[in-house]
């Protein structure tokens, strides 16, 4: 049984199509990143998985049933994109309140430890920094020991160090065989913290696989060198090259086989090559290529 299964799901607001025939399935036990630029339909999709928004069309199944049923059984925990806490209550009171709403919650001290809140337990929620409040919202999301944890841009308000500690907490939680789905528009985050990346843009899945597969799908390396005003033609005919571009004396070749391309450049042409660089595709390139407007 898949933890999440979306079949032909769509949702529009007025005449804006936020989600457009989305199909995705997430097996139980995986940590999956939902990667996409702002406005790609990530939050709308997540809110439909949580039963907060009804899909306009298609079917959403969570842990084998409707999202509402999974939430009511206490099998889902979520950290939504925004949400203030109750300022008058302490961290400990908030976490304890939410964990008691679940049938089989984690222990209070364990939640506080995992979310790195033990020291802040007695602090009132209105005295927390943005990053601290995020950690409390994470604690609320895991409080009920949900089988499926959904996080919508969880590190938005965090600095680099809190971000690292935060992902450590999530990995610790996911290691118990739970399913985690997180939305992000940070590429490294998707790369480093998930075992599968689903790229969506304009409400559709445009790529789906491990970070490495997605990079490989784009595949190309870039070979770049300075021409210095030499006349040139036929660069796009070199072995492996799929596209060649010359601007301001710099030639940029996109190639599937950088070794062959470079060899041919030196042996097969009489060009004087300077400043040669070979740049590997990273997820950023892949992401930009996938989400570029058509």
């Amino acid at each position, binding site marked *: 049984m898949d933890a999440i299964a979306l079949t032909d799901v769509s949702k529009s607001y007025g005449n804006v199509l936020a989600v457009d025939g989305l199909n995705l399935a997430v097996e139980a036990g995986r940590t999956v990143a939902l990667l996409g630029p702002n406005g790609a339909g990530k939050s709308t999709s997540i809110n439909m998985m949580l039963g907060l928004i009804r899909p306009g069309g298609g079917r959403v199944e969570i842990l084998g049933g409707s999202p509402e049923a999974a939430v009511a059984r206490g099998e889902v925990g979520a950290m939504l994109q925004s*949400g203030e806490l109750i300022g008058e209550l302490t961290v400990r*009171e908030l976490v304890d309140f939410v964990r008691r709403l679940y049938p089989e919650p984690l222990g209070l001290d364990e939640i506080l430890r995992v979310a790195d809140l033990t020291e802040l337990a007695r602090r009132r929620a209105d005295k927390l920094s943005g990053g601290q409040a995020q950690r409390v919202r994470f604690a609320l999301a895991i409080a009920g020991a949900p089988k499926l944890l959904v996080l919508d841009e969880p590190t938005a308000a965090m600095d680099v160090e809190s971000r690292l500690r935060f992902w450590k907490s999530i990995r610790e939680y996911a290691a118990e065989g739970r399913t985690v789905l997180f939305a992000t528009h940070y590429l490294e985050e998707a790369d480093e913290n998930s075992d599968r990346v689903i790229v969506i843009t304009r409400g559709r899945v445009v790529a789906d696989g491990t970070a490495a597969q997605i990079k490989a799908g784009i595949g190309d390396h870039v070979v770049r060198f300075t021409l210095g005003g030499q006349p040139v033609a036929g660069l796009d005919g070199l072995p492996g090259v799929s596209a060649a571009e010359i601007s301001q004396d710099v030639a940029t070749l996109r190639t599937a086989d950088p070794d062959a391309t470079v060899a041919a450049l030196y042996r097969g042409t009489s060009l004087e090559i300077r400043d040669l660089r070979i740049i590997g595709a990273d997820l950023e390139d892949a992401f930009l290529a996938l989400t570029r407007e058509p």
Partner: protein
Amino acid sequence: MPNYVKIEILRMLRNRRYIIFVVGFPVVFYLIFSGIWGAQTDSGGVRAAVVLMVSMAAYGAIAACLMSTAVPWAQERQSGWLRQLQVTPLPGWAIIVTKLIASLLLVLPSMVLVCLAAVLTQGVRLPVGEWLVLIPALWIGAVPFAALGLLLGSLLPADAAQSAAMISTFGLAILGGLWFPVEIMPEAMQSVVHAMPSFSYADIGQHLVAGGAAPPSAVLTVVAWAAVLGTAAVFAYRRALARA
């Protein structure tokens, strides 16, 4: 759910606005008014200290109901706390029921303080039987005001809910004759006054402390308002909770 009621109460008791406006004001008003007029007696022979005790307890209850429901509820809807609760197993109806219970419990501090002030500063003495009817009557009678607060909180954004709760509290207090005797109002206003839930609500209390029974028409008015506002509150609440 007892746990939820507990944190709702805890947060209000830590809220300075609640403590000042809801718990503090009615007692302070009582001390001032009864200090001036407390010794007078009305046509029925009831001391003003007793009449004022009922009026201020009623005012405190109305303020407590409106303040502890409308504003926090509107804020929770806006700030995303409601959504946080919606992704937990807590059923939707439990939220409104909890808010109702909590607001009724939050009525008690000001009511008890006003009565205590009457007993201690004005030497008000009622037969035990009358206390035992008066307090529950004033307590249960506060239901329409809690419903009004939840209605406002469901319909309005937080800052508007704040103003609406203030205006409703003062409007109900003045038009219900809680701050000034109804008799000094112009003739035309009298029928408005008699239709107000706050008038009938306090009127029940006044009859009880005068040693009589609650007038059926006043009880009917409060029940009718409770039904109307309660129904409206449930509808508005369902709309506020509805999934887009």
